[in-house]
């Protein structure tokens, strides 16, 4: 059995560590690229949201590299993501690929099934071993988020432009060669040390922009056209409202134990959106309010074209922007997003934020 899974930012590193510790063969899909998107767009339903299309591309490229089992997470509504597993299997079947698809619905939905599926892919490894690897995988996700935060802070302040990019490039080559959680931890650690040595101008005044919106488009750099890097190069410190380790915390641990780890966010969103409406719409609104309280200069909402919950959020955000006095820009992403138009919009937004900040000080 050779397991593969779709890309979502750097999640693959945590998953790779998890599976390799348990002795499962993993095929990592090639980093998302034009070809991935082309395959996905060709075979997916026309108005399906972008993540589904990229997923299909990932699967096909992995299957070409020998994968025969696909592992993804699931949900039970009301967002479209809940039906991904089913439809993706149908699409692959019509393309002539006969692969096994294992969908992990959140453990709070049906814990028995969750465990039986874990046992299935791990060849009945003892539970404590699975739990241990799962925890290590989560720790990797946590480390990665930490590393990303460092890069977000250093990039706009680096004295020699492009330093972070160079280090990150080296790291990407290293991480490919690393196997098992122990090696992965080491690579991340080394990289962090390198990042610490980057010379920065600590006094430089930088703008702070929060990225809010739909989780996949926030986390997957190929889909958001490397927005964090682009903004960093424009002298903006970025903050991601959502990352993988938090997602694991809320979906795997908190919901199972029945407490709400996002109480702050829910409370902040209360005035604008009373009920959770699926996806991350409520988190998007809540985070927007929290960011403005933290004194961020502006926010960018990312969503895949036709995303149902985020459409609701995007129609509420103008009120948030007005009441909380923070500029918010919405960027809709799909397979037709052109890079130059995208950059223009980012530049205009950043310029506007800069001017706003200057005039405010006076």
């Amino acid at each position: 059995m050779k397991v593969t899974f779709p890309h979502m930012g750097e999640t693959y590193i945590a998953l790779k560590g998890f599976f390799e510790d348990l002795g499962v063969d993993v095929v990592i899909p090639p980093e998302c690229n034009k070809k991935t998107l082309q395959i996905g767009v060709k075979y997916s339903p026309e108005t399906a949201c972008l993540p589904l299309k990229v997923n299909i591309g990932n699967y096909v490229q992995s299957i070409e590299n020998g994968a025969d089992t696909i592992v993804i997470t699931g949900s039970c509504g009301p967002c479209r993501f809940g039906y991904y597993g089913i439809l993706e299997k149908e699409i692959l079947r019509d393309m002539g690929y006969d692969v096994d698809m294992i969908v992990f619905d959140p453990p709070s939905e049906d814990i028995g099934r969750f465990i039986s599926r874990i046992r299935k892919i791990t060849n009945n490894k003892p539970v404590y071993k699975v739990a241990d690897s799962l925890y290590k995988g989560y720790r990797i996700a946590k480390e990665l988020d930490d590393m990303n935060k460092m890069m977000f802070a250093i990039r706009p302040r680096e004295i020699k432009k492009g330093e972070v990019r160079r280090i990150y490039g080296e790291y990407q080559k290293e991480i490919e060669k690393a196997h098992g959680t122990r090696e992965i931890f080491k690579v991340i650690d080394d990289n962090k040390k390198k990042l610490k040595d980057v010379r920065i101008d600590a006094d430089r005044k930088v703008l702070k922009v929060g990225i809010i919106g739909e989780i996949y488009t926030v986390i997957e750099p190929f889909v958001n056209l490397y927005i964090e890097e682009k903004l960093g190069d424009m002298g903006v410190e970025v903050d991601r409202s959502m990352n993988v380790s938090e997602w694991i915390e809320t979906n795997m641990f908190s919901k199972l134990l029945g407490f709400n780890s996002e109480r702050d966010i829910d409370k902040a969103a209360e005035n604008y959106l009373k009920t959770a409406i699926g996806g991350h719409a409520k988190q998007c609104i809540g985070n927007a309010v929290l960011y403005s309280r933290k004194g961020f200069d502006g926010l960018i909402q990312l969503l895949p074209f036709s995303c149902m919950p985020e459409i609701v959020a995007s129609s509420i955000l103008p009120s948030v922007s007005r009441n909380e006095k923070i500029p918010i820009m919405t960027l809709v992403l799909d397979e037709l997003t052109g890079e130059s138009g995208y950059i223009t919009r980012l530049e205009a937004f950043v310029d506007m934020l800069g001017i706003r900040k200057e005039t405010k000080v006076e």
Partner: protein
Amino acid sequence: MKIGIPKGLFYFKYYPLWKTFFEKLDCGVVTSPTNRKVLDSGVKLCADEACLPVKIYHGHVDSLNGKVDAIFIPRIVSIMKHEYTCPKFLGLPEMIKNSIKVTSRIIDTTVNLRGQHGDLFDFAMETGSIVTKDRYAIMNAFRDGLHEQHEFEKRLKECGDFESALKKDHDRNIPRPEKIAILGHPYVIYDSYINMDIAKKIQREGYSIITPQMIEDDIIRKYASKLPKRHFWTLGRENLGAGLSLLKCTDVKGIIYLSSFCCGIDSLMEDYLERQVARSSNMPYMKLVLDEHTGEAGFNTRLEAFLDMVRWREQNESNVSTHG
């Protein structure tokens, strides 16, 4: 008190219930006709990426705004246990409030039958108490409403036409034996403005129509359960179940799926249905996608071509197996 009910979305499912309920509580019920002006103002006010029915709904709210004492925009989270409607309906009152400056009062009570404790009467009480303090009257009005709704659904089951089921004047003529199925959400297939009166057009060509609301619930449920996952979209389940059940009916000559552009539910469930239809039957199947730019001429051409194809198939193909 004058209450405005926007003529869109769940209007096409529950209007008789709401109308009777409010009228029994001595309220006047007002709706506005769907026309170009409503559509245009909806498109202007609503978020760009929303689907056509949501935009039209915005237009209706805008046209009722200020002319009535209250506008009824319920938050319909779930109309079936363990299921949801659509994320956009969950946030509909918020979408409206943040896009339109509504001067009339908004009644945005919640219908949520998803969990164990979901109760329709709670919703009735909450809504009714805005109008009157008399709990007994609210109960009675709601009971009458449910009765009316039930009668309406019976009529709709017979004729498949929203307007005539509403007016109680549906013709009881013997339907033509050959049927074309129209699938889609109620607010698309029964809104003759959005779908450019497709039902009449099909009937003129000598077919009678069949819609998901004309099929028995347990049949829909049975066929919908072929999906290897628990359904969480009520509207998606209905269409999938209806579509799959029709494949076995010999009097159904073709299926037309009416979808609105960017409908999230249809983007997956319609695709799933299409794949099943193509794989397991030779039923003619067409998907028509509607948005605010849809031109009627192109729409008619596609419909005519489809019906021609269905007819030729009946006349010229002997339906005898060609491989012996």
